[in-house]
């Protein structure tokens, strides 16, 4: 599974607060991978990744099976 965050990210910080194992924030509060390449989601974190996707108020997170 891959996780991608678009430039719709406005820095709510919900994703990296919920899943610090996967994501982190920059100095302004945006997720560091905003508008960048997708990251790999380890199998044991798939459920968490799905939760993170559903928590973003901007619907900026997308998951794809790879």
């Amino acid at each position: 599974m891959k996780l991608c965050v678009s430039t719709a990210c406005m820095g709510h910080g919900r994703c990296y607060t919920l899943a610090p194992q996967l994501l982190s924030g920059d100095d302004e509060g945006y997720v560091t991978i905003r508008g960048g390449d997708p990251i790999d989601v380890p199998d044991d974190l798939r459920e968490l990744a799905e939760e993170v996707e559903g928590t973003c108020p901007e619907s900026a997170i997308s998951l794809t099976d790879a």
Partner: protein
Amino acid sequence: MESSTISEVKGGEVTGCPVMHHDFSTTRDLGDYWALANDLRENCPHFYNKYSEGGYWVFTRHEAVKDIYKTPEIFSSESITPWEPNPIYRFVPTQVDAPDHIKYRRILNPWFSPQAMEAAAPMMREICRGFIEPLVPRGSCDFIEEFALLFPTAAFLNVIGVPVSHTQQFAEWVDMFFGGFGGDPAGAENMAKALGEMREFWTEQLADRRREGFREGDLFSYLLNARFDDKPIDDEVLLDMCTVLTLAGLDTTRAELGYMFHHLAQHPEHRKMLVDDPELVPLAVEETLRYYTIIFGDGRKVTRDIEFHGVQLKKGDMVYALVSGANRDPRHWERADEFVIDRKRNNHFGFASGPHRCLGMHLARREMAIAVQEWLALMPDFELATDAQLMERGGGSMMALSTLPLRWEVHS
């Protein structure tokens, strides 16, 4: 953005849309504004709300509210109060659109980032305890007046570098301002007075920094040093920024805390869950922001003729995105009308969304979590100390309880 629900039109008549006459500025029984939002949402996806001098479109459902937030190029923030398209105040950057908006936000974001709030958390916790400890032996208090108004104000002043001794004065200004913000003409004079006095205070603060030199950990020094398009920020703009930070930062958190503690006073099972598992507190805070959202609606000004969710909007029209309707819309939420303390996938609009999402959100949720943790650590049991009907301020100003009498057992 072009989609089946948003498309450009040239003129066109409005048809098939109900016209209503709701006054959202009045004080009502606690909970009435959410009940009203539920009714409006289930009766119609949109309507035209007419008042004596004008009117505006109200969009009641999650999908439309989301689209309004997602298309700031169509829905301008030039005015965020649909009953007042040309207000006497200017909030910066709240009422600034692209391209300047993001430049201001880039200046302010780091000051209120999650990392900055993490660093400030121990100080906030100490301030919080300082307000709670003297209450414990008393056995009762008015939660709003003696805690919810004071703690967020003191924490905020500390975060921006203003002495906490000004807490009472700020609490008064903010109360005066919001007496008029929701459209109640009786509050207009106080609103103007509060704005004037706050401006005077900020003017003195800025003059003081220029005279006495810049300080570390001081927002004024930081803003006086900041560059906008390679130039210092104008004084007028600095004052507009300080004003909105104050208004947005103090009143809102007091309001959310009021509703959260009203809920906890009536739900011992939820208090117990939070005491047993403090990790749940952040989830409970988010659910409070969804279920007890204090933003009745959020206004925007239409920038061009457009068809939006079946309504033909014209340039200059005001719209009102009914956030309180969206946050409990069963088309989006499971168990929409239920407070689910450990709710997952909680992508609520309690802090709005889009580029204007609440700047102080990380401060606010910190303050709320700290308030709950510290209060429950010292007073895990408390209840409402009145049978009287509690009232909430009009949704136009953002709902808030004016009073919340609580009592608890005193252990000697």
